[in-house]
């Protein structure tokens, strides 16, 4: 049955907690964390680690159904996760990306790992100290086209270890995963650069493994409390069982591994979109608050011809924000129900990425000299927002994915 009932007990309870965290632990340090790019929000990290541990939530990225294996952890639904991510990003999108106990690395283990691998790597999320997990896909010459990656993995038959060589850029939380905490990074590498997708596998590299080091820490437009690093791998050796998935496929020239990794995007894209929505809501609420303070009331219900330009802009933003959030909720609802949602995931992401960019840009514009000033957080949200139209597939890549789905075209038919 069609329902838009937001009053589910669980969502409401956690939303209140999230709101408290956002207001009391994020907003007060938001400016400082932006100005001091290298700072790590440990108070937030430690608090979230303890809170999530006590709630039994393994990570903010929820765990997909694991095909009848004895995994009895409480299942947090994607719908609930989307609400939490939206709420935390309303607080501070950069700090939200510093939420411990997982991230994309553990999502990849969940999606592609064997039961043994999940047990081994994910149980560590529950230890005393918080850890981070990162995912390293992008290379200098392989961004959106990640089937072009050149990072090599080769098996050393003598020691039965994988030996990795190459360079990975734009790794979110790489420093926190490998230096600041005892976490891991999932690195995508190819067994055979000529084989394209068929040669690509993912490998878990744990902190303190010799041969992997951080060679650059990026300085960014926004989301500055989230670190973004370059890894250089030089004869980095990991055990045979650290290659994610069934070891059988290591011999076969097939794309199963690549596809399963790509499928995690159908789950994570709406969640990235949820983060975008949180930033957009923050900006729109702040805009309305400041306008109200200057005596501008938005007269909902009037015909457009009677509205001022500012009112029209704000009403358009309300409309974009609400409908964009509903696209997210539908996409995560499909994830929760195990329905194929490549189209809906791409649409939610491309829409939210554009909406948050527009709303934050407009908010700064409408407030004129106030909007441009660093005394308010609006200019920061304007900078934070833009990443949502870029990472986890740029707006253009998501349009391409959506168009292929809508037209029934393969990658070769619509390039």
């Amino acid at each position, binding site marked *: 049955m069609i*329902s*838009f009932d937001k009053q589910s007990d669980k969502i409401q309870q956690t939303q209140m907690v999230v709101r408290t965290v956002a207001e009391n632990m994020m907003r007060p340090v938001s400016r400082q964390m932006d100005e001091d790019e290298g700072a790590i929000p440990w108070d937030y990290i430690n608090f979230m680690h303890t809170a999530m541990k006590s709630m039994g939530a393994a990570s903010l990225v929820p765990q997909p159904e694991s095909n009848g294996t004895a995994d009895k952890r409480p299942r947090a639904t994607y719908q609930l996760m989307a609400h939490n991510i939206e709420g935390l990003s309303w607080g501070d999108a950069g700090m939200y990306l510093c939420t411990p106990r997982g991230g994309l690395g553990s999502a990849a283990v969940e999606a592609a790992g064997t039961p043994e691998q999940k047990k081994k790597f994910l149980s560590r999320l529950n230890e005393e100290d918080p850890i981070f997990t990162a995912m390293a896909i992008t290379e200098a010459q392989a961004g959106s086209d990640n089937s072009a990656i050149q990072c090599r993995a080769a098996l050393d038959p003598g020691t039965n270890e994988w030996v990795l060589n190459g360079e990975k850029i734009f790794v979110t939380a790489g420093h926190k995963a490998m230096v600041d905490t005892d976490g891991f990074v999932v690195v995508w590498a190819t067994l055979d650069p000529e084989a394209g997708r068929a040669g690509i596998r993912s490998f878990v590299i744990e902190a303190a493994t010799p041969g992997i080091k951080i060679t650059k820490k990026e300085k960014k437009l926004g989301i500055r409390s989230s670190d973004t690093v370059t890894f250089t791998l030089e004869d980095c050796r990991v055990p045979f069982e650290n290659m994610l998935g069934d070891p059988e496929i290591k011999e076969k020239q097939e794309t199963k591994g690549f596809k399963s990794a790509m499928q995690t995007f159908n789950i994570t894209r709406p969640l990235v979109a949820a983060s975008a929505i949180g930033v957009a809501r923050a900006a729109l609420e702040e805009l309305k608050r400041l306008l109200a303070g200057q005596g501008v009331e938005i007269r909902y219900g009037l015909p457009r011809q009677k509205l001022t330009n500012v009112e029209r802009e704000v009403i358009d933003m309300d409309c974009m924000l*609400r409908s964009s959030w509903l696209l997210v909720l539908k996409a995560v609802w499909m994830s929760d129900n195990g329905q194929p949602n490549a189209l809906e995931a791409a649409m939610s992401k491309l829409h939210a990425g554009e909406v948050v960019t527009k709303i934050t840009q407009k908010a700064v514009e409408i407030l004129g000299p106030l909007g441009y000033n660093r005394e308010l957080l609006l200019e920061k949200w304007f900078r934070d927002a833009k990443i949502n139209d870029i990472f986890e597939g740029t707006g253009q890549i998501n*349009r391409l994915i*959506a168009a292929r789905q809508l037209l029934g075209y393969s990658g070769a038919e*619509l390039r």
Partner: protein
Amino acid sequence: MYSFDPTEEQQMLIDTVKRYAEKDLREAAREAEEGGALLDKLVQKGWDLGLLQASMPEELGGFGEYSAVTGALAAEELAYGDLAAALAVLTPNLFTLPLLLQGDEAQADQYIPSIVEGAWQPYTAAFIEPYYDFDPNAMRASAKKEGDSYILQGEKAYVPYAAEAPAMLVYADLEGETQAFIVEADAEGLTIGERQKLLGLNALPLHELHLDQVQVAAGARLGGSEGHDFAPLLDSMRVGMAALGVGLARASFDYSRDYAKEREVLGSMIAQKQSIAFMLAEMATEIEATRLLTWEAAWQLDEEWEEASQTAYLAHSGAADMAMMVTDRGVQILGGHGYIREHPVELWMRNGRGITSLTGLALV
């Protein structure tokens, strides 16, 4: 929790209406538009699907219960076929649903059973006024209490089937509040103007209306002596127009997508070019976003949530922009062919512009 699956009954209804819209309405739409008339038997066939009847309780001659969500789903499918015909099929709702939702018992009993049990009859409503800044909450048509009756005065426009309607609801300002009044066709002082010539919707007879000191009994005020709450009716009109906009846009999207997959230019199908493919992706995304917002507004109306008014307003506002954007691109994707009246996309583009101004022509 949020959930996005229609019920089984709703799905059956969607399928039934879709078949009618695709087969019957779509095929007849061009001729109806050019000839300026809808086929009576097609409108009757739409009436016989039982959309209104299914939203009425048994004691009023129907066989179901009212739901704005179901109404929105049905309206979307109808407009997927043809907007003019959709509005014609839904015209009796303009009179009957407000009586069900806000009328008193005497009003409901007097009119609803005979309407619901009979053939399609153009009971209608006079809502829109001929001013650029027409505001449903500040109408210029006025109602004044005089003794045991009300005196109605003013100008109305876009009244469907005004010349054939047995009775209509006339909306007017009563002491700063919009209220509806039941006016019989033969009321003294009621003049039906010429049929209007418009940018689109030429198949649908729409008329101007002049009310010159039209006197109606006190009992003709919708809801009786205490009147009624106008806001939910306006919300329902906005949701209705939004749903029609979504259906109309879907028609244009589907048509231009199919065309793009068959039209070859410079060695490949135009759908294989990103400039076209990305337009289609954006069209589909905006349609889906507006559709969900429309559903949410309808759901909040059914649940009588306070936010319903604002959501309905946003849904209609978004649908107006979306429908124009999508139907414009429908023409653009077909290029020169889109501009020729052999293809339906130019008609949909003209209708698409109407979504913003035609609130009051349908309600769910």
